[in-house]
């Protein structure tokens, strides 16, 4: 049906799946990439770490990577796509805990209870790396960099949670949310001033404690004042400094 044209001419798309890595190097977005790249883990250690990684997925939109109450057996690193973690209260209301981008870890909050305390749901097509936890813990006792990385990520999770300030305005929350996502994408080597919001606006609203229409109203206002442009799910920052100014009260220094 005349589709032959579409086989060529495509530019690299945003949020691609990471390369697969090899025994010397992890995937470019890997959660543990910094362990080997930054700290020079010896080849044997790296090979061992590689051995306990399994690629899992693809998960489709709405699929669970794990469910609340499942027995904790592994932590996962997102390779591609976005994952949301959420809890459901007794009345059936969902509370979104966070959104997890390529290179980020999920499941760390289960170490303590040995049961996953939340659902992890794919918001689009998602691929993950599964790190069997007992094996990872054993390896961590032998490779200090891995232990250090785990502690670093655990403490960062705690820090992120305390950042959700209740008294902030809708403008502040949204500006901080977008800047935070941009910074996380940038840290993984993606463009600093553009992002794709793969979560539905109702999820953004839920996470920020706002009404869905407020999310849109504030974004429209940001757009009208030249801070950013929203097209479908794509957001491009036109004035990041201005956005930081809006969020200054709740951004970390």
């Amino acid at each position: 049906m005349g589709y032959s044209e579409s086989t060529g001419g495509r530019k690299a798309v945003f949020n691609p799946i990471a390369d697969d890595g090899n025994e010397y190097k992890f995937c470019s977005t890997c959660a543990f990439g910094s362990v080997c790249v930054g700290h020079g883990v010896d080849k044997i250690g790296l090979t061992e770490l590689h051995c306990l990684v399994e690629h899992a997925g693809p998960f489709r939109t709405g699929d669970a990577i794990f469910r609340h109450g499942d027995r904790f057996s592994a932590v996962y690193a997102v390779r591609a796509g976005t994952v949301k973690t959420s809890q459901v209260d007794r009345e059936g209301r969902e509370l979104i805990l966070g959104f997890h981008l390529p290179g980020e870890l999920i499941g760390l909050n289960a170490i303590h209870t040995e049961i996953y305390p939340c659902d992890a749901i794919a918001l689009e097509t998602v691929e993950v790396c599964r790190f069997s936890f007992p094996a990872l813990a054993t390896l961590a006792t032998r490779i200090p960099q891995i232990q250090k990385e785990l502690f670093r990520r655990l403490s960062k999770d705690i820090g992120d949670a305390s950042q959700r300030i209740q008294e902030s305005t809708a403008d502040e929350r949204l500006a901080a949310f977008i800047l935070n996502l941009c910074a996380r994408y940038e840290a993984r080597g993606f463009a600093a001033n553009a992002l794709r919001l793969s979560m539905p606006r109702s999820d953004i609203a839920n996470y920020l404690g706002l009404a869905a229409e407020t999310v849109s109203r504030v974004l429209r206002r940001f757009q009208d004042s030249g801070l950013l442009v929203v097209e479908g799910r794509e957001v491009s920052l036109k004035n990041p400094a201005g956005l930081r100014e809006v969020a200054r009260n709740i951004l970390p220094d």
Partner: protein
Amino acid sequence: MENRAALVAPQFDRELIARYDVNAPRYTSYPTALHFRDDFSEADLFDCIRASNDDPIPRDLSTYIHVPFCLSPCFYCGCARIITHDKRKADTYLTRLYREIEQVAARFDRDRRLVQLHFGGGTPNFLNITQMLELIESLGRHFSFSRDAGREFGIELDPRFCDGDYARQVAEAGINRVSIGVQDFDPAVQQAVNRIQSVEETADVMQGARKGGVRSINLDLIYGLPKQTPEGFARTLEQVIALKPDRIAAYGYAHLPERFKAQRQIDKYDLPDATTRLTLLQSCVSMLTAAGYVHIGVDHFALPGDDLAQALVNGTLQRNFQGYSTHAACDLIGFGMSAISRIARGFSQNAKDLPGYYMALDNGRLPVARGRLLSEDDLLRSDLIQQLMCGGVLDIPSFEARHPVEFAHYFRQSLARLQPLVDDGLVTCSSQRIETTARGQLLLRNIAQCFDAYIEGSDNRYSRAV
């Protein structure tokens, strides 16, 4: 969107236009409705609606409401309609229509503004004024009507079956655009197409609409009808210009009796020949241009002060099922028999017959019959064709900024198809820009067709381009 280099008057080159008078889609949608599929279901429609609510800033909404009944058959008609004198059929239909509106509207988030509303047919004024006002009121309860003056709330009115007072009342209920079918005032033509309508009846409805506050009135003309002559049509054009409509649409009649039963009433020997057809179109373009109308694109003309002409200059013009519009891309919800929706990435079409439409709703289902989910390639081409149909200009760097493709490579086959049109001087093409020339203004459909991925093997199913 691209600013049109002011308003280029179309240049009429008979030889060229005759040569390009081939079958081409009108591109009120891409892909066209011919490519909808039977495997599109109600569940797919619900997914599309959900996805449309999920955008960070969901699109504004537009609705089309189809009233399929007509009191008398016009022989040229290719619309989905039912001829009846039984006015009770309106109530039977409205019961189901209300059910459909209620079920669909509930799935759209309430903060989404309805900026466009259009009643088409059939004959919307088959509904009496009480029924019509109630329908408008009910839509206002189910959707958040925009209060912006720029909203486009339109209705098609048949002056043979309503008066100025009907037009005034719908205008007072919020309708600000009226479209009236004229086709031709020549009595011989009117007889041949079974549509007898006087200038006075038409003027009366226009006057009522204006009194009620309607911003923009459109008159429809058709060239290529049986018994049409250049002299008679020129007289019609004079009469139409004297009525001072804000917009004029001049459609070419497509004689497809094997597809449209009503057209079998037309004696093909009464149809003007190709040369006469060209003369009719030529007088249309030259007389309307001389009277100060701006060519918007394909078959549409508007006075320079009208919103459409303004949108063309500002580069905000949009193509939709009704022709052209001034609103940025909306999610379009079609209600009623045969109506088409375009929501998020999907097209959905309702059952094309009354029993099918009624049966689904009576069984608690929506009357989705066909549709299509758009691929990445469809979305790219739909954007491109939209740009070309709305101003005739495509800025390649900004297209590449919106889509992840290298234009010259991705569209290499389309560009090869475009080359003969470039050679003929219809369009210029550089690495930065594709731009229609004055010679190409009347052949936008042919230019857009070069970028249509579905065109091979689909000859002769579309109306002629000119």
